[in-house]
Structures are given as C-alpha cells and as structure tokens.
C-alpha cells in the first residue's frame, strides 16, 4: 500500500518546488547500494572518469532508454528497485507524476573531495546555479528524485538549491551569473534521504571539502497523465473561502493557503507578487479548481468588464 502525500505536503511542493524525506531508506539498502557501485576510499581512485565507467560496467544500475516505464526500469530485488518500491517514495511519485510515470534519465552524481583535486592538480570549483534540461514553459511538470546513500555533512557540499524558484522560466545556465542568492540552502542529511525537486528548481552542486566521495543518485520522471488531484483520489480537497485582506489575526491557525503564499528572501518586491499569482495558477492545475483564488490575487485581475 503506497502512502500518498498529504494536501499540506502538496502545498509545500507547489510553493517551494521541493520535498525531503530525511533518512527514509534503511541502512541495509544504503550499504547494498554502495557495495553494488563498488564504493571505495578516495586514496584508491586515480581517475574520476575511470571510476564512473567501472560503476556503469559492474553495478546493477541498468541502461534505461528514455521513456521506459518506471515500473519496469530496475532489476528485481536490486537496491534501486527496493527504493522505488518504498511505500513513501512510491506514494510521493504517484501523488506528483502518477502511477504510470516514465524515466526521462538517471545519473549517479559523484563529487570528489579536495584530496583528489590536489593529487590531480585540478582547480576545485562548485557547480554554477542552473535549471535542468532546457527552457520549459509547460504547465505539466516532471520531478527529479534524489537519493543520498551516505550521510551528507555541511563540509561535503551537498546540493545547493533555491526554494521557490521552480516556476520562473529561465534557460538552463542563464542563471549561472547569480553566485549567491539570499535564502540559498545546501542539503545536509542522513544516509537514505530522498529529495524530490520540481524540474524547474534552481540548483547546483557544492564543493566537497571532506575526505569522502559524495554520491547523489538522480532520476527524472515524467508523467503520462494529467497531474490533477493524484494525491487525493477521493477529491476531498475544498478551497478555503476568501478572508479579509490586510486584516491580521495573530491567533489564526496556519492553513494550506499560508503554506502556498509563503515568500522567500530572494524575491523582488514587484515580482514576488507574480510568483504568488503563478503559485495560485499551479495550485488550480493541481486541484482542478479552475476558479480557485488566494488573497484575491487572481480574482482582482480577472474582473475584466470590457
């Protein structure tokens, strides 16, 4: 039985573009994954490309043609099949991209520590900020599922990401000039953590200042069905009524709308309002409520009488 996301988790994803499940995968499976890829100490690695080629040649990670059904993608009883069969992972995937999702691509990211760059006389630089693939103005979205098989400490330079950037339409490395963005986060997590990003979320890999190789296994999944109420098959979700604007009540309980309307420190004063409007449009798509509104942002500008 899969565990579908809650409405609050969906609202968090709609607003921030990401969800995390800390330490979700058990240590036995994490060890199995690391053994399967032939994880070793950095002292035993002379060449990054050769190390990666060996993983591709000898591990159970299969070659998956783009467009393959996720259901048939991974070998029976392999560590990756166990991860995708986890009831929380499967539930999150079903909630966001449906039960018939297909694999776009997968990649095992390796971030080598300082020792390796010193040994090979190379400059160690972080990865620039980017949005994956290419400019993508769709309403439909893909997800990128990240699996961290080891602990990721702060000095290991875990994936840097910028919550709330996923609905900004940019062209891949067109955002590389932003070295630092207020509110930026770096993934620091326990082994077995799963992260799920909307395909539009701005991100980049950090520098690994530890003595260990950092691994991150990524799979991009594409839906084959409309992404409407996939997490709520009984259609229980009902939009909240309008509230009085600019009328604060400190005793008010936090609602789904508060999660959806959260602002971020990197947003401009003017464009922040458009970010909210786009989040409401995204929530309309996810819930199927085509006239839904929050804080009157869309009703106000849709009231065209001429």
């Amino acid at each position, binding site marked *: 039985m899969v565990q579908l996301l809650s409405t609050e988790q969906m609202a968090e994803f709609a607003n921030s573009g990401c969800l995390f499940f800390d330490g979700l995968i058990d240590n036995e499976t994490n060890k199995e994954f690391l053994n399967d890829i032939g994880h070793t100490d950095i002292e035993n690695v002379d060449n990054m490309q050769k190390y990666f080629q060996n993983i591709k040649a000898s591990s159970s990670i299969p070659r998956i043609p783009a467009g393959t059904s996720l259901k048939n993608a991974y070998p029976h009883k392999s560590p990756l099949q166990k991860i995708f069969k986890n009831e929380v992972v499967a539930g999150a995937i079903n909630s966001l991209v449906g039960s018939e999702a297909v694999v776009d691509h997968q990649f095992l990211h390796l971030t080598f520590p300082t020792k390796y760059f010193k040994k090979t006389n190379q400059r160690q630089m*972080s990865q620039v900020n980017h949005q994956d693939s290419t400019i993508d103005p769709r309403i439909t979205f893909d997800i990128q599922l990240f699996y961290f098989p080891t602990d990721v400490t702060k000095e290991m330079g875990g994936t840097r990401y910028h919550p709330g950037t996923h609905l*900004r339409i*940019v062209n891949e490395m067109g955002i590389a000039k932003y*070295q*630092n963005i207020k509110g*930026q986060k770096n993934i620091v997590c326990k082994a077995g953590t799963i992260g799920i990003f909307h395909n539009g979320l701005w991100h980049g890999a950090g*520098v690994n200042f530890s003595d260990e190789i950092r691994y991150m296994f990524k799979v991009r999944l594409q839906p084959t069905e409309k992404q409407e109420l996939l997490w709520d098959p009984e259609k229980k979700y009902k939009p909240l009524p309008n509230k009085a604007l600019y009328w604060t009540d400190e005793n008010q309980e936090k609602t789904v709308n508060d999660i959806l309307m959260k602002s971020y420190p990197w947003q401009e004063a003017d464009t922040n309002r458009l970010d909210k409007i786009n989040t409401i449009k995204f929530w309309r798509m996810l819930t199927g409520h085509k006239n839904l509104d929050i804080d009157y942002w869309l009703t106000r500008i849709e009231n065209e009488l001429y």
Partner: protein
Amino acid sequence: MTKRQKVLVLYLKFPSLEAEVISWATFDGTGKKLHMTGDSDEPPYPTGLDALLDGWRLFQASQAIPEHPGQEFRTSYLKHEFFFEKIEEGDF
C-alpha cells in the same frame, strides 16, 4: 605597478540603490581571492547604497523593460541588476 579590475554584481529587491541586496557575485581581477557559486550565505552589503559608501563605482544598471503584452505574469531572471567596480593598483 599595474591596475586590475574587481567587479561586484548586486541584484536588488527593487530598482533603486537604497534597496536590499537579494543576490550577489564577485569577480576579483587581482587574483587574490577566487570567488565561486555558493561561497557565502550573507550579502557583502545590505543595500546597493552601502556598496557606493565603501568606494565601489557603479558602471551599469538594468533597464526598466515593460512586460510583453500577453506575458505580463511570466517570471524569469532576477530583474534589478547593478554592476560595480573597484580598480586596484599593485604588482600582480
């Protein structure tokens, strides 16, 4: 003695130098410091004006471009971009 350029790019909350810094990048032509993506969580100055007060010279600011009709709600790159420089003399 030779001259080298240091460049500071600030992205502000609204298009006035008194606005809060929301994103930043530094490129040091003296070679003294290698800046890179994700190297600081706090901006070098709270506002654009603070950079001027510390001797940075503004040499480019983003233009105000009206939204294309039909695309008024599309969001994209950070809008309010300001380029500053400092010239440093030394034996590089």
